[in-house]
């Protein structure tokens, strides 16, 4: 494990609401940063309901999990699963048959402390909800990425989460909007990025459009960021570049052509 920077960043990815694409975001951002040569580790803290191993396609390589690490059944090094594609990417799996009470916030902080010397980025995949699992996940983090979707229920939960992060004294909280559909926004049938920023009042880190390719990449266990042609892949690449400190303009989401519009309105295609 060769670190690029002397410092490490511990980033928690959270949302409040489930199913908005937290784990997908974690898998893609970590893969993207590893692709740039950073050494990255992802910690799955969704104990009892793990998904990250499947999204990264590493489910067959899991031997130990984080609960076994904190209980002293194995070493941290033994539990780390090396990625198939990038030698600088590792995953610390969650336990599937345990629950959120089987680990404490102090133990998570301890594990992170042990990981810091070896990694540039430590991502924490936070479970949905605002209970113990959430508290454990934010305990060790320096920064937070709040993931939401352009729908009222997800934005409301994001607002609650931002409030909780602020009261936990997080200074660096950024927003990532997943599953936006530019055509629906233009038609006035979906909340726009501007609407979300106006309501949530936090800095935007990235926007990822709805892309059916995500389902396919999840089926295969290959993060979509590896597919440069997909719109979601490109969007994730932009977010990765921003995390790595580059200034990247926000993607102009593909506008539908006149013919496309005509076709849709007259009932062809969709």
């Amino acid at each position: 494990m060769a670190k690029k920077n002397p410092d490490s960043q511990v980033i928690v990815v959270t949302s409040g609401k489930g199913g908005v694409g937290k784990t997908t975001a974690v898998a893609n951002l970590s893969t993207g940063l590893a692709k740039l040569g950073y050494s990255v580790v992802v910690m799955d803290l969704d104990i009892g309901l793990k998904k990250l191993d499947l999204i990264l396609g590493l489910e067959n390589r899991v031997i130990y999990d984080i609960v076994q690490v904190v209980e002293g059944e194995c070493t941290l090094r033994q539990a780390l699963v090396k990625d198939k594609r990038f030698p600088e990417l590792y995953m610390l799996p969650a336990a599937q048959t345990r629950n959120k009470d089987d680990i404490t916030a102090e133990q998570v902080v301890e594990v992170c402390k042990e990981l810091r010397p070896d990694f540039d980025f430590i991502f924490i995949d936070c479970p949905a909800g605002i209970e113990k699992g959430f508290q454990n996940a934010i305990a060790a983090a320096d920064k937070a990425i709040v993931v939401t979707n352009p729908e009222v229920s997800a934005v409301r939960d994001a607002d609650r989460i931002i409030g909780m992060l602020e009261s936990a004294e997080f200074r660096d909280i950024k927003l990532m909007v997943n599953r936006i559909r530019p055509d629906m926004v233009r038609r006035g049938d979906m909340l726009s990025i501007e609407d979300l920023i106006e309501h949530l009042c936090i800095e935007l880190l990235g926007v990822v459009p709805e892309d059916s390719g995500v389902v396919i990449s999840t089926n295969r266990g290959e993060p979509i960021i590896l597919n440069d042609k997909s719109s979601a892949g490109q969007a994730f690449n932009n977010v990765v570049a921003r995390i790595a400190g580059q200034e990247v303009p926000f993607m102009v989401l593909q506008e539908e052509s006149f013919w496309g519009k005509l076709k849709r309105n007259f009932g062809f295609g969709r």
Partner: protein
Amino acid sequence: MIDFISRLFNKDTSSKDVARERLRLVLIHDRSTVSPELIGALKADLIEVIQQYMDIDVESLIVNLENDDDTMALIANIPVRSLKRAI
């Protein structure tokens, strides 16, 4: 097709505007909801300070945070039993 025609003639507000307005109201409400613990702590502090100046009926004291659209007010009803003697 029918969708297109109804869109042409229908001047209904878009669903996005409905979502925006619902979100605005729900966030105002959520953000203004104060936990009972906080109100309890405020009440205890209020009693302590006011009792230095007058004798109040602690049992029937009421403290509430009320909001009305965009404005918020802390309403307190504090029955006074007697004033302390002027020093």
